[in-house]
């Protein structure tokens, strides 16, 4: 399967303040009543963006000035909680192509990587600088170089980190592992034959 090699992400950013943004907040469970991921982007951060009568709140995600943002910036332990892939799917379908935070929950990180959406970790000071930049000027362009993991705004550069395996699979276009997993099925069949199976009456 030919996948895009994700070596560089360039886009505008939007900042969501707070630590421990859980996947229930990214996509409330009631919007997971679906059998496809289509249209999930509409429900991204729904309860943050709406009042209980479904009218829109004054929130950064409702501000048209940020409607073109493709890089999300947030705090620690982003994507904690439920394993729902609906969360990264909603972000991706709402136009996000990279997430920069002070750290990610593990399942969310894996789910996002398999969608080709890099999750980069930076220090608190970098979040402060990036958030200040996009908040003061929504037109700020952020550039992420996946080769050297430098994040740039104009002349300023910041270091970021990502698991090396994830970086490798993103830049080589192997972030969806199905092709490689299928190549190994003969070995899988050998292992399946040697491991106990459930006594399936």
């Amino acid at each position: 399967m030919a996948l895009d090699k994700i070596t560089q992400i360039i886009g505008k950013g939007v900042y969501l303040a707070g630590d421990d943004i859980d996947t229930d907040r990214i996509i409330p469970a009631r919007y997971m009543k679906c059998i496809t991921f289509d249209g999930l982007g509409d429900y991204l951060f729904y309860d943050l963006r709406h009042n209980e009568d479904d009218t829109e709140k004054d929130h950064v995600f409702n501000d048209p000035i940020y409607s073109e943002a493709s890089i999300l910036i947030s705090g620690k332990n982003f994507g904690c909680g439920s394993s729902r892939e609906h969360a990264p799917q909603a972000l991706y379908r709402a136009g996000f192509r990279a997430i920069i935070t002070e750290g990610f929950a593990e399942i969310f990180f894996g789910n996002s990587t398999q969608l080709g959406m890099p999750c980069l970790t930076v220090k608190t000071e970098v979040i402060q600088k990036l958030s200040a930049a996009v908040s003061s000027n929504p037109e700020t362009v952020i550039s992420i170089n996946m080769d050297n993991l430098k994040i740039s705004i104009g002349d300023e550069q910041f270091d970021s980190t990502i698991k090396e395996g994830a970086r490798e699979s993103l830049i080589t276009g192997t972030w969806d592992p199905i092709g490689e997993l299928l190549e190994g099925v003969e070995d899988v069949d050998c292992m399946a034959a040697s491991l106990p199976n459930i006594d399936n009456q």
Partner: protein
Amino acid sequence: MGKNLFEKVWGAHTVRELSNGQTQLFVGTHLVHEVTSPQAFGMLKELGLQVRYPERTFATVDHIVPTDENKEPYSDELADAMINAMRKNCKDTGITFFDTHSGKQGILHIVGPEQGITQPGTTIACGDSHTSTHGAFGAIAFGIGTTQIRDILATQTMALNKLKVRRINIDGELAPGVYAKDVILHIIRVLGVNGGTGFAYEYGGEVLDRFSMEERMTVCNMSIEGGARAGYVNPDATTYAYLKGRPYAPKGPAWEEAVENWKSFASDEDCDYDDVVAIRAEDIAPTVTWGINPGQAIFIDENVPDPDQVPADEKDSVLEALEHMKFAPGTPIKGTKIDVAFIGSCTNARISDLKEAAKYIEGHHVAPNVKALVVPGSQIVAKLAEEMGLDEIFTQAGFEWRRAGCSMCLAMNPDKLVGDQLCASSSNRNFKGRQGSPTGRTILMSPLMVAAAAVTGEISDAREVFGVIEPSGV
């Protein structure tokens, strides 16, 4: 140098290393439910792939099933479409499905163990973060995303990074009225909601050794709330006694062979861990959450934090949590009025949970203006409870007795909080909006503490409400 269980299971299930350094890991048992799987079956179809080992996948419905009626079609068309998609996908691919009329349906993490599908020394995966529950049996059990469900359906493997292992020893003796739920809430409070990122937690020590399988499941269930993708307890005589005779457990001569094999996976005495943490059982009191993540927890006699007295980097989180919960800084949690009491979920809806709550609720009545419900974790739990008369004890006390499902833990069904109702809940997450209302409020606690709150109409110490609590029946 010996090996720990995680290393042994990982090694035995490693197919090969992938080009990006991840492991192609064989999944011994795959569990599937209706919410996170339909897209995976769709992807499989799009790629023209088949389910490679249908006999290694088991499915049921839990998240969306209404708990007040078992009548189809459901009034919720979307829920109806989901259950029917699950049925069709299982039928088309030959996957065993525990349907709503099978007598075996329930929350997947309760069904797997009670059917004997969950076994030691294997890898288990499921598109649900509480899959860690199955680690109670000495399995390595992971919550996964939908694309990984596709990977497992197609290849019985997934691409994964190896985890580090943190051993958590709980030694000493728990005081009466302190339960497995308090133990795990305390662990998360001490180590933090992201303290387990990159780790599997191995729970052990005298307390875990004495715990029943159901108590071990409660602890392992909430590993993910501490950031750990997997959590487990080494298999022992308690594990084997629980499994013996279960429908899908090995039988006859295969049983002895299986036990010998399972024993070989237990961590060696001289094994290494990446980290070791010790917690004294005597330091744990009945614990309740006060905020909007499971690490924001205090003992029942403590006050909610004062933002001016917490470390600077926690101040914003504390303020946000207090605002959502509508709590004044530095005030006691005890005495907080509740609107709803919920006993249920994959954390605490097993027969021992219901028995313990019923034992003390008898002779008491739910406070006026409190809606209280008990939702058994599976149809088998419900049947057992009804045979013991627990349903009558609960209904006479003013609880609603419901059918098996996830119910109000995540409110993907008709059981929801309304407005800013406050719920005393035996579930696992107190996130904003988790129980179905964006402004709804959740306080996590043990089932007995929920029962106490239901009776008094406010957050209470079960030991005071019910008098002397006997040591839990292990």
